[in-house]
């Protein structure tokens, strides 16, 4: 039913999605925390900027990334001089996916952090915790469900990312072809039956991801702020 090449596409897609999610976690959590706590001017602008990839068409994000990283751009040329190629490689897949998934993680995590009573953090500080210890011992344990939900959303988005990916990474079989790109390609070459099979696989993966997250968040959650 499913060919070895298609299995490799599934594996590659999963690899990229997992890696992207893991890589955006530190910055995403940090950004979410900053947005939850920061109350100064410019907060609105920062929030909007970070949310842009959510509402922009993925192709717009794709072209922006291309302009930034293409060999003719300053950044791209500098990277090329260092021997680092991004456009049309798996790194482009990873990068495009990370950019598109980032705002989803930040949104969920930020809401979760906002729900943690800031006075609890202050109390932890008086009890001897530095800011980082207070985060790991109080804030994160109380907010982890929201952070996890954000990570799962980011992962699901990463599974399905197409527009920015196809522009930055191209649709190169065996190199940058994720499930989403493969579905498009199979349809392009007239093999709709394979396209449907791949679409089904993608749906299956997304289902498992979401169900797992659901299972985690459904478990005992009796404690609210005491």
């Amino acid at each position, binding site marked *: 039913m499913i060919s070895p090449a298609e299995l490799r596409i599934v594996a590659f897609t999963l690899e990229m999605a997992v890696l992207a999610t893991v890589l955006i976690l530190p910055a995403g959590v940090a950004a979410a925390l900053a947005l939850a706590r920061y109350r100064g001017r410019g907060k609105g602008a920062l929030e909007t900027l970070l949310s842009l990839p959510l509402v922009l068409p993925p192709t717009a994000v794709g072209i922006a990334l291309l302009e930034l990283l293409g060999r003719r751009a300053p950044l791209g040329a500098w990277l090329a001089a260092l021997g680092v190629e991004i456009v049309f490689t798996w790194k482009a897949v990873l990068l495009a996916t990370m950019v598109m998934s980032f705002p989803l993680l930040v949104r969920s995590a930020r809401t979760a952090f906002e729900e943690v009573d800031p006075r609890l953090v202050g109390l932890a500080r008086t009890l001897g915790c530095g800011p980082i210890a207070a985060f790991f011992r109080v804030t994160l344990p109380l907010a982890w469900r929201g952070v996890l939900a954000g990570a799962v959303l980011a992962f699901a988005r990463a599974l399905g990312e197409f527009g920015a990916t196809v522009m930055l990474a191209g649709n190169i079989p065996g190199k940058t072809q994720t499930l989403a790109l493969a579905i498009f390609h199979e349809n392009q070459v007239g093999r709709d039956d394979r396209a449907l099979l791949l679409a089904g696989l993608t749906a299956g993966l997304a289902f498992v991801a979401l169900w797992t997250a659901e299972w985690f968040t459904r478990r005992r959650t009796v404690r609210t702020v*005491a």
Partner: protein
Amino acid sequence: MIVVELELPLPAFALRVKATLAQKTTAVMGPSGAGKTSLLEAIAGLRRGVRGRISLAGAVVLESQRGIDLPPEQRRVGYVPQDAGLFPHLTVRENVRFGARRGTERVTSAIQTLEIGPLLERYPDSLSGGEKQRVALARALASDPRVLLLDEPLASLDVGLKERIVPYLLRIRDEWELPGLYVTHNVGEALALAGEVMLLRDGGVESRGAPLDLLSSPGLTREAEAGIENLLQGRVFAHDEPAGVTRVELGGGLVVAAPLATERAVGWPATVAVRAEDILVATEPARGLSARNVYDARIVAIDRTGHDMTLRCEVAGGRSLLVRLTPGAVAALGLSAGRRVWLAIKSHSVRLV
């Protein structure tokens, strides 16, 4: 000892407090919005923009001139907020141990002092208000602080519950050598616990002094809750079953008879509470009176509080009792400061706290 000389701009005014607090416990009182909580937070290091000098039990935690401004985790203050602020995701035991440094000695002592042993494996959301406060107190103590900062710790508790926690506070005050700042609206609490009262208004210290002195201050009594309670500490002296009373010795030869309470062990500390409204005043030694508690006293001060008059009377052993009378009664008896009177209290009006 707490030495404070700080300034902190706030939205409505600037908090400016300069004080050396030598008493074990200082009550911080004043109207809402006077800056009491901000003061505690400034001392704890939870506020930005504080300038001046703060020294806690000899350690300088803030000195703007020398560029010293320790973060909260280095100040070693035991902060207990109004609603306990327990960490909901940790058990009572984990909460108490949260700030403990090397060794478990203090943790064990704190658990014992606050008698929360049976609660250790429970989670905060299953505790009553009083239990939460005790855990919060234990947590603060276990972290080996230099000072205690208590922000209206009893405010969210019912009257009955309040009285049950006060002894723990007294125990902390007496058994742990910790200076403390205690924010409260309740005059009774201030009387029971503090060696000194500091009155804040609009960010500044309006007055300072012994609790009983300050009680006459109009500013304070306006804020005081209706019904002043006399709280006196002593030890259970004896149970007299035929007479139906438990006698509590208050020191200086003063003994109070309270309704029989055999569950209290003889020799154990006890606090008695008598409402100012429940004390009778006589200008002559009373005869044939049912009241079991009659004391020789001298009126020290008389003040108007609302529609009533409050008398401060000194009894044996240097203790003071507050008595509330109607103006009519005061006039009818011709009471004035300096006058010798006899105070009568029914044993039923005495509560063991």
